């Protein structure tokens, strides 16, 4: 089977492998203007460009934090923003050994004839946009497809539409020098048990990799950002070890060894929960040809956001909070996290929002 072997092939392989460096992971800071508005309003901060910029500066310039990160996903606005001193964020990250990434999808739209299922749009002129982002310094991209578990969901149509959409996006990114993160998020909403989640996850991932191969995507130059396999949000919780076993088993069955790294989404888990689950996965012995790491948004920023509360005098305290979470997740990628991260306010708070609109 032939796959992409164009001018960016070697660079894509190198960058994808770098993102999976043990001890490192991704900070997802690509909240759209609307979504970041919700975060800011939760701490009574106005949703204006300066505040959005200040929050990202708080994160990216936290001393000692960048060593635990291999990539940061940005929203388009942030890609072109600078620190208060006038240094482009892209430079701050690159100099800190962190690859800048960019969210390129244009949100979800409903699939006609389904029970509220969606597909993701953003393919029109995607090649041109990727080329532009590469010029601005981005080296990886992200596209989020969303599926859900219900009595008749996910439907075959939803699986096919989302898998095909991801594959199209992936090859277009590679043609333009960006490592595509493939994100088929199966929402945690529902009362299903962990076995149902495992079965759905396996079916969805199988479809994704079939589509990626049909579209000749270079797997060594991609990353996967899946949900962990867990019980539904309304079902009884299980210990991290059980999450780890079900998740790793699902991945062994569906994700080719050529994929260098799997960077989990947190999807509403609390900061601590997400870290403990990741840690348990890296403690399992067995076949794991890809590195298992994180690409967390809420699960890295929640307590930091609370500590900041929008006030300049809180920046140092907030940064300390952020550093704690980064270090904890770094250890989790090595299976060495002892669960002893000083729990600041909000670290064990569930971040699940029913029917979450991202």
């Amino acid at each position: 089977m032939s796959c992409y072997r164009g001018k960016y092939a070697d660079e894509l392989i190198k960058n994808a492998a770098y993102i999976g460096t043990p001890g490192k992971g991704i900070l997802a800071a690509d909240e759209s203007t609307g979504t970041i508005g919700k975060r800011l309003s939760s701490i009574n901060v106005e949703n204006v460009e300066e505040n959005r910029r200040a929050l990202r500066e708080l994160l990216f310039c936290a001393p000692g934090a960048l060593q635990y990160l291999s990539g940061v996903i940005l929203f388009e606005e942030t890609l072109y923003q600078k620190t208060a001193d006038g240094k482009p964020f892209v430079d701050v990250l690159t100099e800190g050994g962190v690859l800048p990434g960019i969210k390129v999808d244009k949100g979800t739209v409903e699939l006609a004839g389904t029970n509220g299922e969606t597909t993701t749009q953003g393919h029109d002129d995607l090649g041109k946009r990727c080329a532009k982002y590469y010029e601005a310094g981005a080296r990886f991209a992200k596209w989020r497809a969303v599926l859900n578990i219900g009595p008749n969901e996910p439907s075959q149509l939803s699986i096919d539409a989302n898998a095909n959409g991801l594959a199209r996006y992936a090859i277009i990114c590679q043609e333009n020098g960006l490592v595509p993160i493939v994100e088929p998020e199966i929402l945690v909403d529902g009362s299903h048990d962990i076995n149902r989640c495992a079965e759905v996850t396996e079916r969805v991932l199988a479809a994704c990799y079939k589509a990626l191969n049909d579209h000749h995507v270079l797997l060594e130059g991609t990353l996967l950002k899946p949900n962990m396999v867990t019980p539904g949000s309304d079902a009884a919780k299980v210990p991290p070890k059980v999450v780890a076993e079900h998740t790793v088993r699902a991945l062994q069955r569906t994700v080719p060894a050529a994929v260098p790294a799997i960077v989990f989404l947190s999807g509403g888990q609390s900061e601590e929960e997400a870290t403990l689950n990741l840690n348990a996965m890296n403690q399992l012995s067995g076949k794991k040809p890809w590195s298992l790491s994180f690409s967390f948004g809420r699960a890295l920023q929640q307590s930091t956001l609370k500590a900041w509360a929008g006030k300049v005098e809180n920046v140092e305290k907030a940064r300390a909070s952020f550093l704690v979470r980064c270090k904890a997740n770094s250890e989790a990628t090595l299976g060495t996290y002892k669960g002893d991260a000083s729990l600041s306010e909000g670290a064990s708070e569930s971040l699940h929002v029913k029917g979450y609109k991202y």
Partner: protein
Amino acid sequence: MASATILKSAFLPKRSEWAAATRSSVGRPATAMSLTVRAGSYSDELVKTAKTVASPGRGILAMDESNATCGKRLASIGLENTEANRQAYRTLLVSVPGLGQYISGAILFEETLYQSTTEGKKIVDVLVSQNIVPGIKVDKGLVPLAGSNDESWCQGLDGLASRCASYYQQGARFAKWRTVISIPNGPSALAVKEAAWGLARYAAIAQDNGLVPIVEPEILLDGEHGIDRTFEVALKVWAEVFFYLAENNVLFEGILLKPSMVTPGAESKEKATPEQVAEYTLKLLHRRIPPAVPGIMFLSGGQSEVEATQNLNAMNQSTNPWHISFSYARALQNTCLKTWGGRPENVKAAQEVLLARAAANSLAQLGKYTGEGESAESKKGMYVKNYSY
């Protein structure tokens, strides 16, 4: 050294557990399976519109050339590509007295949908008063398909739902999306899949917003291949198109097709008679097109005006399960455009030419075309190698 947890063999699924798990997660109540075709809010209207466009003795005038393509047409008669000239030309076309006798629908480009005639009447209104259903091109053109053999795919899905809704409000009642398949380049499995999938997604979205989708996977004429190869490719393409249309819950009674006829490639040494084209094309349709589809409106794809009419006529020599008709652009407009030449004093003559062409194709739809009185111009082939639309 971190303690390791071994994946216990007890953790691996037992056969009985597996069977139980699949039953509970995959089994569906019988009622869910009956939901094969959704009852959307526009279902009845879609069926009615499709039947109207597919009415006996009538077909579609395709006049949806993008500004760039229209520019080529105008340039061929020495006219500048300005909005005024495009407006003048489209006014000429839609104002042909009695056009609605032979034309059931007209596909417009976005600019035209919102334009008025040179007399200040909305073009959409003129069409409706002529008993012609307005349609709208909604795709955003072809771009190179990554990972293929130099093939293309069609863009336009982003924001399509709201665009269709706006077009419906403006008066459009059907839509059109053109993707292409190239036989010399394969076609690769990826290109066929991408073409079929894009059409299916577009069709579902269009129907959801009140527009009857014309499904157009044009198998390009370019190439040296013979008619058997075209037939083989067409069988594959249509199988896949209908598979994905079904998967996307598209209402077949509310769509129209715009296929290419099955002919040898333009550079082939083989030449086919209208009877041969009809035989191959009808065989394809019988094998691949569900009878629920009300109308099959062929594209002309570079055939001369007369050729396109003769081929259509040959296909209508016996009754078919679907209305077999035309959706022609160049094969309706060519002589008309040349007759006009951009001069106001030629408008009437040009309009008469268009009406005559439409009337000829109307006869062809009824299987009664005799070919009397055709001009030399109408017999001129219009094939352009590597034609970009």
